[in-house]
């Protein structure tokens, strides 16, 4: 088995695990964790796409002359995605806080005023 593919396998596992948590967990915090897992999986995939064996960081000052430089785009994408993830997770958790204040529970089965 090619060990170079392991990051892709890990990313897929993280995403599947996250989707499982979102679909089957009853606790709101665990659902948020699931979403976070999916996000981490996608970020891992993006970073992995930018990996080149023996590539060096794309910073021109003091860079060694030999060897390929990696393209900074995937890193930039991942950074942006992490920042967006922070905002969405914060917003989700603040909703959880307010839901707990109103309903006194985090169990999705008991939070169902909006049905139909």
């Amino acid at each position: 088995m090619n060990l170079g593919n392991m990051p892709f396998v890990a990313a897929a596992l993280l995403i599947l695990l996250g989707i499982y948590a979102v679909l089957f967990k009853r606790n709101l915090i665990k659902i948020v964790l699931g979403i976070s897992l999916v996000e981490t999986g996608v970020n891992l995939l993006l970073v992995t796409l930018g990996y080149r064996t023996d590539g060096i960081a794309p910073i021109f000052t003091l860079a060694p002359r030999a060897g390929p430089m990696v393209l900074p785009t995937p890193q930039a994408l991942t950074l942006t995605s992490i920042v967006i993830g922070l905002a969405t997770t914060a917003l989700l958790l603040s909703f959880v806080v307010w839901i707990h204040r109103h309903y006194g529970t985090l169990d999705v089965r008991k939070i169902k005023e909006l049905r139909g």
Partner: protein
Amino acid sequence: MTALMTQHAPVLLIAIPLLGAFAVPILGKLGRGARDAFSGLIALLTAALAGVLAANVFGQTGAASLYVLGGQGFQLPLPSGMSVPVRIVLQPDGMSAFMTLITALILLAAVLFSFSYWRDRSGGTLYYSLLFLLVAGVFGMELTGDLFNFFVFLEVTSIAACGLIGFRVWRKTSQEAGFKVMALYTLSGLFVLLAIGLLYGQYGGLNVAYVANALSGGTLDLIALGLLLAGLALKAGAVPLHMWAPDAYGEAPAPVSAVLVANSQASLYGLFRVLFTLYGPAIRTETAGWLLITLALLTIFVGVTMALIQKDIKRLIAYGAVSQIGYMLLGVGVGLAVSVAKPDYGFVAMQGGIFHMLNDAACIGLLFLCSGAVIRAAGTSDLDRMGGLAHSMKWTGALFLIGSFALAGVPPFNGFASKFLIYEASFRLSPFLAVVAILSSILLLAVFVKAFQAAFLGAKPSVPVRRTSAGMMIPMVALALVVVVFGLFPGFFLDRIVTPAVNALWYGRDAYIGLVLGGG
């Protein structure tokens, strides 16, 4: 000044609402008058820019134009010799301009309506701020020519929309709706990002034209397509991924519900862009067409039947809005299914589907604004506990009826014009499709007439109602005028703006790729 506005309209359309979003809280410190005046100015400026852009694009019969940020000039194509085409590209073509018109129309109506609607409520400053942020994201989605920027704008709209749904934290149900919608929006965004990652991994580019040019249609591409379809259909509120939509539209303040419909339509625009511009000939097949048609029939059917059993006026309209997404998908699905075999009536189906986006935005927007006035007057959104509002709100009742007729596709209102094209084209593919579509429309009419009867007819209410103020009346009348004028002169608008928009999707792919890649 005008020349400058014309040239830079694409980026200003994103920049002006963004400026508005972050300047409103500062102006809010100066008092309500300053804040409202500034918000009105931003909305007017945005609408003017959308008008300028549309006049420019439709003046050139909807051909795509290029706006490049970070280059030496604004119209430079991507350096074709360079192996890595990295530029921030906006590319307004007929379809984008058409969508920005819809968004600007709804934004203007919502902001005008909000002046009176928020007069005696708290949280207005936050509200305007988030509203402009949402609209900036929607314009971004509609104008960008870059996959990753599309994702970023998608997330901007998600966060702003959920802020608007849930910012009234004292309401129990708004928090529940906010959480549900945010969780699903985030998942949809991550699906889209995953698909973008898969495409980037294969082709090493993020520019739509560059990826479209290199696309080979292999297995990974199809997986990416599936993820994009799932993510964008979720955000557009198509059944079976619609469960967030009634909560979102129902719990948001009335003017926001109208803007949220424009947001859903922007996702639908993204879906069409992916299908026609990014994938193009590779998936112009019957299979793809029938997939969309199945989604469309499900959406129409579930939307209408769920609307039947609603007791809450806003949830009822929300399910009506869900069902209309189905009609747009039906038009485009029929277009895709016959695009190779019988392109001429496929084109008619597309015209119907795309025209219906504009018509739906106008009449659903009108209905949501009416529901805002109704809820304000009756003090409740429960249809069983209101009634007799027509005694003191004749005009609001009449406008509600106009919106309902237009939504159900009764002539001579605008819904009829676009739905007729959809019926006609889908009948030629299979009579069954047209029958389902027509029956659902009739059922929808029954649902809305029932809602009208519950809210407006009956004995005069014992407590005095709050009548609709002039400030709320103006945007409602304006939207009703759009509904009527588009219904009376559909041919005029079909030729001027709808056909160029459909052309951009249907025939514009090669020209688009050539334009952005500089012929290389």
